[in-house]
């Protein structure tokens, strides 16, 4: 599904440059649920951004679903992001003047799907996250957990191959975090491949594999016994 070889990335800081990723090798198979952990500055977000095609590596190889991701034009990157990837952010990143339905339908709009079909698909995904009745509500009328569920519905709408989550529970309380994790686990059970950045041990333990980063290199890469979130809900 995803293969990364000797990935390097550095950011210029003034005259010198900060070497953030120092040769990352990672390969993820379809259906996996991987947590990327590390303290701040370890490069975990940079890695996720590169995987998400929001940023480009300086060196190394990145193959997503047998497509080498290299030298992308903005247009091509947009198409790949739309086709392959679903994003879930810590701060939800919903568009605040669009209601839940329109937010979920947005990736479909960029796929060029016509309106009636967009609404139908968006409603289906909203129902899946249990928010069908909230379809016409604006984001500021929703709770944090609801917002994240709308964001998940949006990430699912385009039926992506890979779900990328950047601290999906970072802005939520423990109870809501567990609800969201429960839902993400159920998506993984259905076969979705999920890659998530977190610094919370208990959230990471709900994944099937933990990759620990430190100073731009992978310290540890282990498969773990998944803790089901449903027991806390």
């Amino acid at each position, binding site marked *: 599904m995803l293969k990364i070889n000797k990935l390097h990335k550095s950011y210029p800081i003034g005259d010198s440059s900060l070497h953030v990723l120092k040769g990352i090798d990672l390969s993820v198979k379809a259906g996996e649920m991987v947590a990327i952990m590390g303290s701040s500055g370890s490069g975990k977000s940079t890695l996720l951004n590169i995987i998400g095609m929001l940023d480009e590596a300086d060196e190394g190889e990145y193959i997503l679903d047998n497509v080498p991701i290299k030298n992308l034009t*903005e247009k091509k990157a*947009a198409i790949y992001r739309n086709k392959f990837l679903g994003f879930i952010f810590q701060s939800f*990143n*919903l568009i605040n003047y669009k209601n839940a339905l329109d937010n979920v339908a*947005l990736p479909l709009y*960029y796929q060029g799907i016509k*309106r009636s079909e967009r609404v139908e698909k968006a409603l289906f995904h909203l129902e899946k996250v249990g928010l069908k009745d909230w379809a016409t509500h604006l984001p500021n009328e929703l709770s944090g957990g609801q917002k994240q569920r709308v964001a998940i519905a949006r990430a699912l709408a385009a039926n992506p191959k890979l779900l990328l989550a950047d601290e999906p529970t970072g802005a939520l309380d423990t109870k809501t975090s567990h609800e969201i994790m429960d839902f993400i686990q159920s998506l993984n059970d259905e076969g979705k491949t999920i890659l998530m950045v977190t610094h919370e041990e208990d959230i990471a333990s709900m994944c099937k594999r933990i990759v620990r980063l430190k100073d731009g290199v992978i310290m540890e890469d282990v498969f773990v016994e998944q803790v089901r979130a449903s027991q806390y809900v």
Partner: protein
Amino acid sequence: MFDRDLWREIFQSINMNRTRSLLSGFTVAFAIMLFAILFGLANGLTNTFDTAFADDATNSIFINSGKTSKASNGLQAGRRIQFKNEDQDWIKEEFGDKVQYITSRVYLNVTATFKNEKNNYTIRAINPDHQYLENTKVTYGRYVNASDIKNKTKIVVIGRLVEEDLFLKTTAIGKYISLNGIPYKVVGVFSDDGGDNEERLIYMPISTAQQIYGNNDYVDQINLTYNPDMSFDAAIGFSNILTKKLKDRFQVSQNDQRAIRVRNLANESKAINQFTFILGFLVLVIGFGTLIAGIVGISNMMIFIVKERTKEIGIRKALGASPKSIVSIILLESVLVTILAGFVGLFIGMAVVEFSGPILEKYFIKDPSVSLSTVIGATITLIIAGAIAGYLPAKKASRIKPIVALRDD
């Protein structure tokens, strides 16, 4: 471009920034309003000039004679200069195709009678070319023609108001009116844009008048039009040479301003043309200046909107928005605000011009108006203006990197 969803997005965005859109639209609206009003007024002024000269052909030259004011060639001052038929023929021969139409005039004051109606009128005894010089419009019958001149026929062409005065509600054509006791057949009735006085005139063949009222070949005035292919400057040069040669012909000093007077409408036309040109130019400068201020205003607003929506644009890009779709949203929003505001301004401007028209008549501004071609021109200008205003902000928006936009502040 005509994607309904795209327009939904744009209206949503305008709706979100209603006050700001309104305020920056105001500048554009004001620019176009100012332009429409100024343009209308300039048009009104031009109309006034046009009507002032509607009476006569604009390429007319009038030649009058008087008494000499200076001695010359051994002749005393105070000598009366009298034009004759031969002078008209001489001008025609001398200047050939520089002269378009030429006529002489003899003035007479008569009492005209028809049945019980009686009134005093001025007669202009003329050559057939006179019709074109004066822009006379024959409504019924015919004008004086060459055979009238040759045969010295006793016919007249009367003004619309003469017919009204003397013939009341009946038609004058074919009837005989008496001018100082001599009967003339009415062969035509005319109208003239020069006003009531021009329509209270009676035209008759110059040869008839010369024979009956003086038995000579004197003429009071010679009028001609110069070849309209000539430029104003060429026409003015032509009338200068004409004046010089006429003065020589009558042995008048070249410095004598009174003996022979040549008035060339080209002088006035040139001045008016320059005036309208400068006026039009000023209107354009002011209009465009204000429009540019409007463009800057809208551009400013769009840059602000892009800045404010950086995060949203980043989200859209992360979800698969192409740079093109971002550019078209910003560009179309800018064009839309510009066009809407522009049309409001145009509408208000046209309304102001329309309603103030009757009041302005006092100030030499007649029928101020904004033509359809101006409206179309303004629309095209607005679309271009909106595109210019939106270009930089749109470019800026398309360069936003999703990673920068999504960073949590």
